[in-house]
């Protein structure tokens, strides 16, 4: 248990998070893939279940709150993104694909953290973990509120979600 940091602005699921999610994904696609993702309708709910073929997951930690930020990709999307960079075909999930999901997720987390920091929120993030399996589900053990933003890109669909939980002292 960490000491509570005075004046820490606690993260809540609001338009700031929505803006940071949108900006972090948009910057990646603009800088690396020269396209602009279109966000869909954001879903809110408790115990939000998310599905994807490949997911990058990282913990998000404040002094009295923690959460999970997850980026979900379809297999087809990841293959097309990596083909764009490596200039070769991808058809199976190999080390390069998992490495790619990790790095792309990392880029999104870093930008998300920066956007949130610029809006007054500070927090730490864990090293991301990559999960794969066709149409897998991720069930959070956190019972707090969650939000999920689907995004459509020229290369396929993806999503970014955040689920929060308050520490119980």
């Amino acid at each position, binding site marked *: 248990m960490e000491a509570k940091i005075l004046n820490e602005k606690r993260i809540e699921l609001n338009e700031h998070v929505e803006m940071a999610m949108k900006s972090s994904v948009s*910057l*990646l696609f*603009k*800088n*690396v893939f*020269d396209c602009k993702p279109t966000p869909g309708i954001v879903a809110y709910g408790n115990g939000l279940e998310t599905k994807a073929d490949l997911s990058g997951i990282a913990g998000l930690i404040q002094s009295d709150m923690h959460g999970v930020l997850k980026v979900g990709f379809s297999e087809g999307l990841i293959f097309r993104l*990596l083909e*764009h*960079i*490596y*200039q070769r075909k991808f058809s199976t999930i190999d*080390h*390069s694909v998992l*490495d*790619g999901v*990790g*790095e*792309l997720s*990392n*880029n999104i*987390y*870093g*930008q998300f*953290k*920066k956007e949130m*920091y610029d809006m007054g929120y*500070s927090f730490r993030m864990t*090293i991301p973990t990559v999960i794969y399996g066709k149409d897998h589900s991720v069930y959070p053990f956190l019972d707090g509120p969650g939000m999920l933003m689907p995004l459509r890109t020229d290369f396929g669909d993806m999503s970014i979600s955040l689920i929060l939980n308050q520490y119980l002292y």
Partner: protein
Amino acid sequence: MTASLGLHNKNTGDLFMSTQNYKVLVVDDFELARTMLIGVLQKLGIGKIIQAQDGMEAMNKLKTAQDEGNPFDMIFCDWKMPNYSGYELLVHCKKTDDLKNIPFIMVTAEADKPSVLKALTSGATDYLIKPFDAKSITDKVNRLVNSKAA
């Protein structure tokens, strides 16, 4: 191996001419990040690009290059890596006489102000934030090449 980050050689003609003799070390534990960065550096005409997957491998390659009398001209290094981080490598380089003058560009997704300040006050020459675009890399290489030529 080419990464398409929207760079066109017509915008980098002069730079291309002056970077052919450059030897650059690219350090990142992610293959994708190395590939994207190397793709841009190749388009800038960097003559020799060597890769390392972590700080320890990078340190060995830096030492070997020094011993062979063919040192690196520039280092692009990720911050967070297993075994020996980019930050540890930066501190090591700045403490080592043979390495301290090699321009060290910290590459990382940690884009918040405290992280940037920490790298710069520890001796990093510059800072490249992921996801990077070709222009930001070109600008940084250009600046370093020009400052070396001056």
